[in-house]
C-alpha cells in the first residue's frame, strides 16, 4: 500500500520525491530534528496545506530521546507518504455555477428560507475581533512595543521609588525643622552655659544686689539642668526643685530668690554675695564648676 502511494507521489506531487527520500534516509533521531525542515520545503514547493504534517513533525520532535522516538518517526513517515499521495491525487471538482444556482433555488424555498438568518454573525464578528487582537499582539511590532513598554515600566517604577523616597526625606526634614522650631525658643532664650553665673558676678560688681540673687539662682538651675538632675525647660517651681534635690544651699538660694524677686524686699550686699557662693556650691555638687 505504502509502496503504491510512494509510486504515485513520486510521479506527481511537487516536492514530494525529495521529501520522501530525505525522510527515508534519516534515522529516527535525525528525522526528529529534520522533520520540520522537510515540511517547510514541502510547503515551499506548493504541495498543498501542510498543517497536519507540521503537527506530525512537531510530535516527532517532542518525542526525540524518548521511548516514542521510533514510533513517532514512523508516524511522520506515514503521514508524509499519505500527504504526498493525497497531494498527487487530482482535486475533486467543486460546485459549478449551475450547482450554486440550484442551491440558491433550494434555499429560497419557503420552508428553508427562515434558516438563512445568520444567527451566529455576532459570535463570528467577536471571534474575528479576538483573532485580530491575537494576531496583532503576536506581531514583531507588538513584541518590540512590549519590550519598550517593559523598559518604560521599569523606568517609571524606579522614578516612582525615587520620588517616594525623596518625598519621605523632605517630610522627615520638615518634621525635624518643626521639632527644632518648637524646642528652639526656650533654648534660644536661655542663656549660654555659665552666662548666668558670669552675669551674676557682673551684677554683684556693679552693686545690683537683687539681680545678682536672681541670676545666681538661674546659674544654679542651669548647672542642675546641664547635669541632668532636673528636667530641662524650667517646668518645675522653685519649691518643687528644692523638694526634688535635697540641698541646703539650693533651699537657701531659693528662699533668697523668693524674698528678693517675688517679695520685693531689700537685698543687702552680703546676701547677694552669699547667693553667688551658694550657686557655685550647687554647681559643684551637680558635677563641676559651671
Amino acid at each position, binding site marked *: 500500500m505504502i509502496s503504491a502511494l510512494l509510486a504515485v507521489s513520486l510521479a506527481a506531487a511537487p516536492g514530494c520525491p525529495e521529501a520522501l527520500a530525505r525522510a527515508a534516509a534519516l534515522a529516527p533521531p535525525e528525522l526528529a530534528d529534520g522533520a520540520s525542515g522537510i515540511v517547510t520545503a514541502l510547503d515551499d514547493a506548493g504541495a498543498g496545506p501542510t498543517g497536519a504534517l507540521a503537527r506530525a513533525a512537531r510530535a516527532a520532535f517532542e518525542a526525540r530521546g524518548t521511548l516514542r522516538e521510533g514510533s513517532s518517526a514512523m508516524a511522520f513517515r506515514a503521514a508524509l507518504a499519505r*500527504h504526498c499521495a493525497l497531494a498527487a491525487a487530482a482535486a475533486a471538482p*467543486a460546485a459549478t455555477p449551475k450547482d450554486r444556482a*440550484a*442551491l440558491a433555488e433550494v434555499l429560497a424555498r419557503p420552508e*428553508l428560507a427562515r*434558516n438563512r438568518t445568520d444567527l451566529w454573525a455576532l459570535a463570528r464578528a467577536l471571534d474575528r475581533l479576538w483573532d485580530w487582537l491575537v494576531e496583532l499582539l503576536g506581531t514583531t511590532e507588538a513584541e518590540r512595543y512590549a519590550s519598550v513598554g517593559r523598559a518604560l515600566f521599569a523606568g517609571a517604577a524606579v522614578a516612582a521609588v525615587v520620588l517616594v523616597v525623596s518625598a519621605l526625606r523632605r517630610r522627615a526634614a520638615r518634621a525635624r525643622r518643626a521639632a527644632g522650631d518648637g524646642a528652639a525658643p526656650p533654648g534660644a532664650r536661655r542663656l549660654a552655659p555659665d552666662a548666668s553665673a558670669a552675669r551674676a558676678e557682673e551684677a554683684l560688681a556693679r552693686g545690683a544686689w537683687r539681680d545678682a540673687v536672681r541670676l545666681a539662682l538661674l546659674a544654679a538651675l542651669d548647672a542642675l539642668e546641664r547635669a541632668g538632675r532636673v528636667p530641662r525647660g524650667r517646668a518645675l517651681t522653685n519649691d518643687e526643685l528644692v523638694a526634688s534635690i535635697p540641698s541646703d544651699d539650693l533651699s537657701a538660694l531659693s528662699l533668697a530668690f523668693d524674698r528678693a524677686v517675688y517679695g520685693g524686699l531689700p537685698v543687702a550686699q552680703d546676701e547677694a554675695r552669699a547667693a553667688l557662693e551658694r550657686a557655685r556650691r550647687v554647681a559643684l555638687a551637680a558635677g563641676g564648676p559651671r
Partner: protein
Amino acid sequence: MRRALAWAAVVASLAIVAAGVTVGQQRAREREASPLSSALSTGPRGLAAARMFLAATGRSAARLEASDERPPPGAVLLLAAPGAALDDAEARALVAHARAGGTIVWMAGDVRQPALERRLGVRVRAAPGSRLAAPIAPHPLVVGLLLPAGGGSVEGDEPGALPILGASGLVVGLSVAAGSGEVLVLSGPEPLTNERLGDAGAISFLVRLAGRGPVVFDERWLVARDAPAPASHRALAIAALQGLAALAV
C-alpha cells in the same frame, strides 16, 4: 467629555449584551425547534436542503431509516449527529462499509459514540459554535475549501487518522483510512446543515462527496433508543446566565 464617553461605553456594552441575549435566545429556540439532523428536517440543523439540492441536480439522495437496511456498496454514507449510541456490532458493520470501498462521513452530535471512537481510534467533542474551518492537508474532498464548523474538535490516535480540517488551532476534521475506503470524522454536521449549506465552500464539499458515489443519509440511529428526551430547558438556562452577565456588566 469624560462622562459622555463613559456613558457611551455603558450604552455600547448594554447594546452588545442585549444583542447577545437576543441572538442566543433565537438560536436556542431554533435548536429546540429542530434538534435532529434529519434529511427530512427543514430546521436549521436539518439536512433537507442538502437532500433537495442533490435531488434537484439529478444526484442520488437516499435515506436509511430501518435498522435492517444496508447502504449500497460504494455509497457515501452521511451519519449526521446520531441520537443513539451505536453498539460494537453496529460500529463494526458501519466501518465494514468503508473497508469495502465506501465513504462514511460521521458528523458528531451531542450523543457520544464510544464504540465508533474505539473502532476508529479517535476522540470527538461536539460543541455549538460558528467557525470556518480550513484544510490542513491536501485531501481531495476539502482542499481549497473553507467549511462551516461548530465549536467542537476531533483527535486521532492512530497514524492512519489524518487531520484534514482545522479551525482556531483545533482539528475539526479527520480522515481515517479504512481498507479501500475512508471514514471522515467531523466535529459536527455544520457543513451540510440547512443553516450553513450556503456558507463558504459547503456546497462544493457536498458536490465532491456526491462525486464519489450515491449519497445516503444514514438515519438508522438518528433518534435515541430510549424514551423521548425530556424537554430542553437550555433556553431558560441561557437566559438566566445572560441575565447574570448583564447584571455583572
